[in-house]
């Protein structure tokens, strides 16, 4: 009846996951109870859960990423404490639990923090920057988000029902095969990634189509803001790379469920094929994450230097070059496999070549700042901090790209330090920069600068205190994923890293405080004009938060930095005397519960597959199919916002902007 599921799945003998799970459960129930008692449920359902508005979906993506960041961060804290106390002792985490923690940490941070964070920002900003009213497929957008949430849910369920994978975040066979991982851990891992992977693919298709086919009048390719370009590159990579992950995990699951021999040691299976396939996805994935961050830095640096982006066209070229070359370097993740010196040399050289376009970008940002009137706001601090950190992190990357060096450093803490160096310094700093930069656009008020700066400095210093010791320990021979160790020389470095972790925790507290303080002071921080930073691209040309239709009129773009040009023009032309344009009715897509209901059935299906509850699998599949049929059968997929309503909303914003222009003395 319930497949492999019985009471032994709940780890009653392990207090840590049980207590953590209970706390999460209490928190969720508490929030739910509060929502229901306060009567917010209808609002939540109509305005958020069923929303197909790209801005709302973007916000929900970022919220999901933030919650999962706390979970992944807790795993990191536990690991750092364990390694700091486990010198010649077992520490406080037994090996099977420690293995689950480092696997969950990597899986969560990449798939359920970094991915939803950047996809959320792209969702929120790209249609606004392109001057359009929504993404190409609004309902699919909602489906994509909720499927990602399903994956996150399954990972968290594994905390209390059963176990998570003990195989590391990429589940290499034969360790992840049925022989060595007979439990449900790898199944939790694989199914949650399969389901959220579908969501990511949907988001990728959606954003590629949006950038290529939905641009406002005059928004030629070479007038798009840099963030739109990096979004395009990143989502092209999603479309090209995520199917590889889907296929690879499908093969692993076939091995586990039906006794196939893709990656087994018996019957001719090929373990190293898994390495090739998973990294053919895995390396582009790195650029899927960091390219949008590059776009964010481009926007931030240009805005806060008060200058157009230096070398815009070389930036576009560099972005697309990275997009292509990122598919030609995957083998550097396993130089030690023994592919031979020629193959290793080719991939080593390709890995060094990809540093060239990245270097082009760094110089472009520096030259954008050069001679500019720089305002050191929080997003700008994250950007400058990124440049310093990413250059040094990139340099250690060029070190491990040298095959002979890699033979020594492979799977050591040096490598762990390197990829945290570039992912934290690149993606996380970028996500935080984008978060502070676009927060006023999403919510209508700015974030408190002082707390933002404190968060930056604690993260920046905390990062170096945590990860520089790991380089050293790696050079001293410490391999990754050690539950305990006997080498005295490593011990002090582990202590320093634990202190750094403490600083990073303070940084997280600063971020949360910043949010709370800003919400309480929101009236003082209100952004009335929609242009709090003196911005340059079209997202600042509408109110904050934007109306559901984004723009009353499709903007007419005549050059790069479209909104900056409009502002200059307005100051020259004394806009007050312009006649009010003729407002028209606007059609917008209707909200739909399809995404949420579909994800509900996907959760049922995923859980049932993990525990081999076959009747429930069929139920889930039928439910999901029925959901789509119901969606396909509806008669009205759009509603009309009457011209009078559009005019009322738009006039308020026009008035605010006019007073700003006259106050600035531009008239």
């Amino acid at each position, binding site marked *: 009846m319930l497949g492999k599921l019985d009471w032994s799945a709940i780890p009653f003998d392990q207090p840590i996951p049980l207590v953590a799970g209970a706390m999460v459960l209490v928190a969720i129930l508490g929030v739910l109870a509060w929502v229901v008692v306060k009567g917010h449920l209808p609002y939540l359902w109509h305005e958020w859960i069923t929303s197909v508005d790209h801005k709302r979906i973007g916000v929900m993506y970022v919220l999901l990423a933030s919650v999962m960041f706390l979970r992944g961060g807790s795993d990191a804290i536990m690991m750092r404490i364990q390694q700091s106390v486990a010198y010649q002792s077992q520490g406080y985490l037994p090996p099977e639990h420690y293995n689950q923690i480092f696997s969950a940490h990597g899986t969560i941070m990449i798939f359920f923090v970094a991915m939803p964070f950047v996809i959320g920002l792209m969702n929120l900003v790209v249609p606004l920057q392109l001057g*359009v009213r929504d993404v*190409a*497929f609004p309902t699919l957008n909602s489906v994509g988000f909720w499927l990602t949430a399903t994956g996150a849910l399954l990972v968290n369920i594994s905390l209390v029902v059963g176990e998570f994978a003990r195989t590391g975040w990429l589940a290499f066979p034969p360790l992840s095969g049925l022989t060595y991982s007979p439990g449900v851990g790898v199944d939790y891992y694989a199914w949650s990634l399969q389901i959220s992977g579908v969501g990511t693919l949907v988001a990728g*298709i*959606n954003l*590629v*189509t949006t950038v*290529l*086919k*939905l*641009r*406002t*009048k*005059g*928004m*030629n390719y070479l007038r798009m803001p840099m963030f739109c370009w990096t979004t395009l590159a990143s989502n092209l990579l999603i*479309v*090209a790379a995520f*199917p*590889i992950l*889907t*296929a*690879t995990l499908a*093969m692993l699951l*076939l091995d586990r469920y*039906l006794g*196939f*021999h*893709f990656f087994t040691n018996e*019957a*001719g*299976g*090929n373990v190293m*094929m898994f390495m090739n396939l998973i990294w053919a996805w895995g390396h582009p994935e790195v650029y899927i994450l960091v390219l949008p961050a590059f776009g964010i830095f481009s926007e931030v640096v240009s805005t806060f230097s008060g200058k157009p982006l230096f070398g815009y*066209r070389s930036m576009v070229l560099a972005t697309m070059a990275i997009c292509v070359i990122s598919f030609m370097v995957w083998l550097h993740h396993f130089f030690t496999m023994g592919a031979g010196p020629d193959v290793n040399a080719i991939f080593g050289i390709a890995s060094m070549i990809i540093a060239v376009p990245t270097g082009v970008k760094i110089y472009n940002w520096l030259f954008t700042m050069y001679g500019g009137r720089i305002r050191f706001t929080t997003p700008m601090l994250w950007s400058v901090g990124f440049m310093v950190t990413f250059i040094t992190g990139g340099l250690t990357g060029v070190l491990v790209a040298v095959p002979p060096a890699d033979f020594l450093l492979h799977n050591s803490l040096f490598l762990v330090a390197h990829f945290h160096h570039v992912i934290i310094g690149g993606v996380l700093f970028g996500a935080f920069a984008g978060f502070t930069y676009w927060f006023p656009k999403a919510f209508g008020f700015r974030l408190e600068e002082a707390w933002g700066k404190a968060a930056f400095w604690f993260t920046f210093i905390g990062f170096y205190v945590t990860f520089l010791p790991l380089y050293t320990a790696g050079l001293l021979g410490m391999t990754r994923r050690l539950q305990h160790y006997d080498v005295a020389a490593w011990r002090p470095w582990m202590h320093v890293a634990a202190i750094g972790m403490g600083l990073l925790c303070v940084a997280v507290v600063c971020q949360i405080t910043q949010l709370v303080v800003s919400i309480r002071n929101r009236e003082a921080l209100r952004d009335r004009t929609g242009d709090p930073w003196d911005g340059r691209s079209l997202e600042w040309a509408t109110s904050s938060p934007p109306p559901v239709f984004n*723009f*009353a*009129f*499709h*903007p*007419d773009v*005549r*050059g790069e930095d479209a909104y900056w*040009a*409009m*502002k*200059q*023009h307005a100051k020259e*032309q004394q*806009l007050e005397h*312009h006649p*009010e*344009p003729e407002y028209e009715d606007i059609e917008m897509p209707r909200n739909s519960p399809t995404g949420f209901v579909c994800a509900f059935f996907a959760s049922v299906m995923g859980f049932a597959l993990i525990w081999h509850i076959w009747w429930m699998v069929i139920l889930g599949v039928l439910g999901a199919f029925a959901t789509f049929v119901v969606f*396909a*059968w509806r*008669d009205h*997929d759009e509603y009309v916002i009457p011209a009078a309503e559009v005019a009322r909303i*738009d006039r308020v914003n*026009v008035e605010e*902007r006019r007073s700003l222009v006259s106050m600035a003395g531009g008239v």
Partner: protein
Amino acid sequence: MTMTATIGHAHADPHHIGIVVEHPGPASKRIVTAYGFWVFLLSDIVMFSCFFAAYAVLVGQTADGPKGSEIFEHRNVAIETVLLLLSSFTCGMASIAADVRNRFWFYLGMAVTCVLGLAFLTIEFREFANLVSRGYGPSRSAFLTAFFSLVGCHGLHVSAGVLWLLTMMAQVFAKGFRADILRRMMCFALFWHALDIIWVAVFSVVYLLGSAV
């Protein structure tokens, strides 16, 4: 200030390359839908290419089991190919019928496509069942693993296509040739034709090249 605020045309060509083609604005729904579906099909082809790669790597790993030349029946494969190619033709007829809003020819084209698809699936299923009954199931060797996965993945796509086809027919029956239903029909046709392209690759790589190993 309003959104229609414009600046001089001097800025339209900031790099002075001479030619400025102004982007006309967002594309129509029909184009956006078809374009997005094409992108999906490309991603699906990438997924198939992984199974093709796995087949290429594992084709020689027979673990003392049968080789491709010992189990492939070219007569069956030829019939399967003819069925699929014919179904592409009838699917095309159904698309044309939908474009000219002719219900009779639409239902007929779709029904014939459905029958051809089901016939294809039946033959494939019997081939699989026959192999399994002889002890040559996917667990027998890495070669058979790759064979069953690749061909089965295509078969699953055809099954999903048949389900979609029936849903499309029901939709046209219930709602008529509405604009959104015509867009879906266009996507279905693209999907069905793409499965043919995949089959051509399956036919060449699995059955023809695989027999030579």
